[in-house]
């Protein structure tokens, strides 16, 4: 079922964003822009050691510094917490978590772990005083390497018997997997490292808590993706009645999962504003955020494929070590599980086995980062399928075609237990190959090899499917997630015919105001400019599940569409009453409800809104006003898919890799606004390419993060990237009435393996088939040197790496 435009027909058009003028003129207010008279500034004192026992915290000097109002250690604040820092996803019954409080009490577990806070009249004063806090540490051995931590060589926490937090398994039919590998004509076994990434949203985090007068509520302004979840969690953790907390996410400058959390600084500002009865604010510095905001990825993956002689994959077996970092943040343990079902990718594989071990290390906690589990899964299967193709001498296109789930198999029940809603994988592949000019690229690649060109061409493919629209609440229950996955919406027509939409989703760059007003405009037959969208304030939208996991449109947008339908249903009853006809004889056209076949007998929606407001003449039993609220809980995920093609030039003398062309064909079902979809794809690609080529959170042997600034941590700039060619196929989702799938994470999921596959495609003839990310010039150069020394390469000419 798909939605057809009822009125203005704006859905599907490239409507310019309504959010833009405020952002373009500097009028938008991010947390740090809020003028709050009398606000105190909080600065954290953080552990300089990866693992240490806190011997003493001396705050005397800091307390006597100019402007300082208060200073506290973890011990001082221990009585303030009604519960530890929240983790909402205990993935197994026996999952182990270390004690975790906003300030460490006995032991610090990573560089950046908070040990004390200083609150002062100005930020500079608080910073000066924080530098005067004297903390004595007894340095303990630190568990830094993931595999060594998994082997329990060094304890990450003195309080835990093992660094292993949990083991999560999914092997529906173990015998089938064993049989497939025993009978396989060919097997592939690969090991990949998902390096740690720093999300690096352009706006650092920030929070400002303002106690209301007369013993009232606490208003928490936070740069967060999750005002609703934050309200509940702050209530539970700080012991504040939830009803007396109002969370507002003002303009938020990007999140990518890093603001999908409940952070120590948010809780500390709440508790100190409550204690000091003054507004308290904290703003993160970039170099502080590098250690204090969650990291992404951090896995060691082993993936094995069993296949027959034609390259048909018969089984996938994946074994993952997942770096939790020092603590479980909000959804840390569940991130690898979001990928657990997708290690067979877009391929029809009968036997499936997955196991993940979550491991603590003395590093910044990991958590959701754009794609969250699904990029890791896609990277593993897309590199492995290329490895299988190489083994069999099959082109990457051919090995994929032989294994795609065929269109007639949908809805497709996977061996991992999911039901893929809809898909036409070969169609997206075909379009991508055509847009990329695949045949010409292969010819150019061959030409360069023949001529011994030192700059070799590599062509990399990635065909992906992801699982979006988080999430059906019953499925979340089966995965032991602590909350539901629904979304709430209200649509109301005001007396003047203007429309208010209240959404529980919480945007931070996605353009929700534009998209939601488009959906409602078509439903009600009004102009998008007549639709006001209210969001990101728990006082305006009491219920919500917020924004992450490409869920806002497929879950939240659906709730809005359904609420708008209900408003029309009610308007129809009122119009039928006024026009003395049957409700089913009325059709909505151009903002008017008219009797079918006699269009002059009609009444405008705006008039009906006014009449419902005055309530002078309503049908018997009808309540005044045109308003409807819907909470939509999806019955299934959505499964966007597509194929990306990356083209790289690899300099065989310097190891430098240049991404020279990039083609993306994505299928996100029906599109509300293709302009916004394009933007999501572009940004996603850049982030995924960043992982492939440049980005890595690098630690030294003592557990200090070395990449704390944007000069060291290489977020790509415009010079490193080409323009992108994007195309789209449209396979509507049957999972929701809008037929939409989600696009926020697709680019990031697809692009990382496409780029690495391209580099290996360039270098495989020289014997290089194994490269870890980021694929730096040094890594490439060393791999080429190693291959040349071992004579692994197939010499093609006098050029190359010889």
């Amino acid at each position, binding site marked *: 079922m798909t939605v057809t435009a009822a009125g203005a027909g704006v859905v599907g058009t490239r409507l310019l964003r309504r959010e833009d003028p405020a*952002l373009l003129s*500097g009028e938008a207010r991010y947390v740090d*822009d809020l003028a709050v008279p009398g606000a105190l500034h909080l600065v954290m004192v953080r552990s300089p050691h990866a693992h240490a026992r806190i011997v003493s915290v001396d705050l005397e000097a800091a307390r006597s510094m100019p402007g300082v109002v208060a200073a506290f250690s973890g011990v001082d604040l221990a009585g303030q917490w009604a519960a530890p820092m929240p983790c909402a996803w205990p993935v197994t019954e026996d999952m182990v978590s270390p004690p975790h409080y906003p300030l460490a009490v006995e032991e610090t577990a990573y560089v950046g772990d908070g040990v004390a806070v200083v609150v002062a009249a100005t930020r500079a004063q608080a910073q000066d005083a924080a530098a005067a806090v004297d903390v004595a540490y007894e340095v303990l051995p630190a568990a830094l390497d993931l595999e060594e931590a998994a082997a329990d060589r060094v304890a990450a926490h003195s309080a835990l018997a093992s660094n292993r937090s949990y083991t999560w398994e999914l092997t529906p039919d173990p015998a089938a997997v064993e049989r497939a590998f025993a009978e396989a004509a060919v097997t592939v076994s690969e090991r990949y490292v998902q390096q740690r990434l720093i999300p690096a949203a*352009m706006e650092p985090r920030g929070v400002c808590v303002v106690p209301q007068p007369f013993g009232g509520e606490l208003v928490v302004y936070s740069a967060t993706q999750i005002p609703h979840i934050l309200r509940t969690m702050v209530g539970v953790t700080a012991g504040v009645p939830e009803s007396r907390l109002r969370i507002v996410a003002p303009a938020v400058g990007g999140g990518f999962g890093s603001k999908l959390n409940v952070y120590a600084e948010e809780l500390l500002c709440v508790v100190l504003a409550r204690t000091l009865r003054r507004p308290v604010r904290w703003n993160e510095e970039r170099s502080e955020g590098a250690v204090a905001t969650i990291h992404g990825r951090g896995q060691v993956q082993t993936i094995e494929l069993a296949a027959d002689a034609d390259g048909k994959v018969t089984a996938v077996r994946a074994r993952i070590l997942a770096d939790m970092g020092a603590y479980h943040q909000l959804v840390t343990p569940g991130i690898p599980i979001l990928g657990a079902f997708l290690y067979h990718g877009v391929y029809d594989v009968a036997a499936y086995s997955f196991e993940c071990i979550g491991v603590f290390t003395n590093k910044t906690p990991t958590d959701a980062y754009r794609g969250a589990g699904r990029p890791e899964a896609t990277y593993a299967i897309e590199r492995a399928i290329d490895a299988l193709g190489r083994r069999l001498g099959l082109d990457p296109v051919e090995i994929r075609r032989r294994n795609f789930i065929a269109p007639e198999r949908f809805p497709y029940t996977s061996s991992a237990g999911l039901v893929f809603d809809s898909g036409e994988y070969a169609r997206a592949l075909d379009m991508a190959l055509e847009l990329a000019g695949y045949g010409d690229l292969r010819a150019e690649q061959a030409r360069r090899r023949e001529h011994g060109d030192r700059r070799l061409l590599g062509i990399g493919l990635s065909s992906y499917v992801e699982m979006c629209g988080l999430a059906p609440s019953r499925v979340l229950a089966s995965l032991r997630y602590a909350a539901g996955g629904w979304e709430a919406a209200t649509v109301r027509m005001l007396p003047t015919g203007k429309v208010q939409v209240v959404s529980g989703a919480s945007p931070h760059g996605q353009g929700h105001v534009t998209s939601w007003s488009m959906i409602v405009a078509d439903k009600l037959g009004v102009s998008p400019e007549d639709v006001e969208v209210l969001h990101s304030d728990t006082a305006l939208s009491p219920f919500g599940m917020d924004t992450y996991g490409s869920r806002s449109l497929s879950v939240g947008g659906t709730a809005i569409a359904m609420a708008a339908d209900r408003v029309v249903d009610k308007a129809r009853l009122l119009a039928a009453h006024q026009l003395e006809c049957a409700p089913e004889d009325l059709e909505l056209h151009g903002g008017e409800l008219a009797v079918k076949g006699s269009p002059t007998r009609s009444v405008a929606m705006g008039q009906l809104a006014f009449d419902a407001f005055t309530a002078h003449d309503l049908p018997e039993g009808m309540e005044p006003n045109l308003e409807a609220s819907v909470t939509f809980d999806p019955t299934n995920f959505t499964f966007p898919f597509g194929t990306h093609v990356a083209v790289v030039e690899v300099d065989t003398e310097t190891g430098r890799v240049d991404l020279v062309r990039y083609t993306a064909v994505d299928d996100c079902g029906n599109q509300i606004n293709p302009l916004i979809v394009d*933007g999501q794809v572009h940004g996603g690609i850049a982030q995924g390419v960043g992982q492939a080529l440049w980005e890595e959170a690098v630690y030294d042997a003592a557990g200090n993060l070395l990449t704390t600034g944007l000069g060291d941590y290489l977020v790509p700039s*415009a*010079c490193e*990237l080409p*323009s*992108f060619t994007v195309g789209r196929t449209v396979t509507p989702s049957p999972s929701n009435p809008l037929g939409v799938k989600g696009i926020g994470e697709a680019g990031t999921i697809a692009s990382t393996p496409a780029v690495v596959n391209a580099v290996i495609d360039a270098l495989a003839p020289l014997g290089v088939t194994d490269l870890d990310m980021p694929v730096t010039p040094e890594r490439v150069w060393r791999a080429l040197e190693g291959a040349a020394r071992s004579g692994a390469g197939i010499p093609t000419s006098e050029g190359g790496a010889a």
Partner: protein
Amino acid sequence: MQVTITVNGTSETHEVETRTLLVHYLREACGHTGTNVGCDTTSCGACTVLLDGESVKSCTVLAAQADGRDVTTIEGMASPDGTLHPIQQAFHEEHGLQCGYCTPGMVMAAASFLKENPDPTEAEVREALEGNLCRCTGYHNIVQSILAAAKNRELVS
């Protein structure tokens, strides 16, 4: 110390600590919060403003250094009636922004660059944006915005 800077055409005098950075002067003393702070290492360019018509990262200039000079921030780009500057308009039309945090810096960097190079190639635009980071757009539409702004200006002149 006392610092007098003409910000968006209006001369303002404020008492500041000598260590005050221009960006903090603009945000805190003048209340122009459109200029954002995205890092502490002069890497991100979110705080880019025009100092005597040329782009600078206002986190790397002391307020004292701007004493007696002329600063334009993002708030000074649109017409008083709210009509967007052609570069702002181009960012709107080409979807050159998402979360908007890097946007003021991007617009100011583009304004300075297009004055130097009114008819740039795509490669020149990308080179010019090296000091301005964006995490949302992948730069594709930012580059398109600046090329479109250059083209529109050509059509006008």
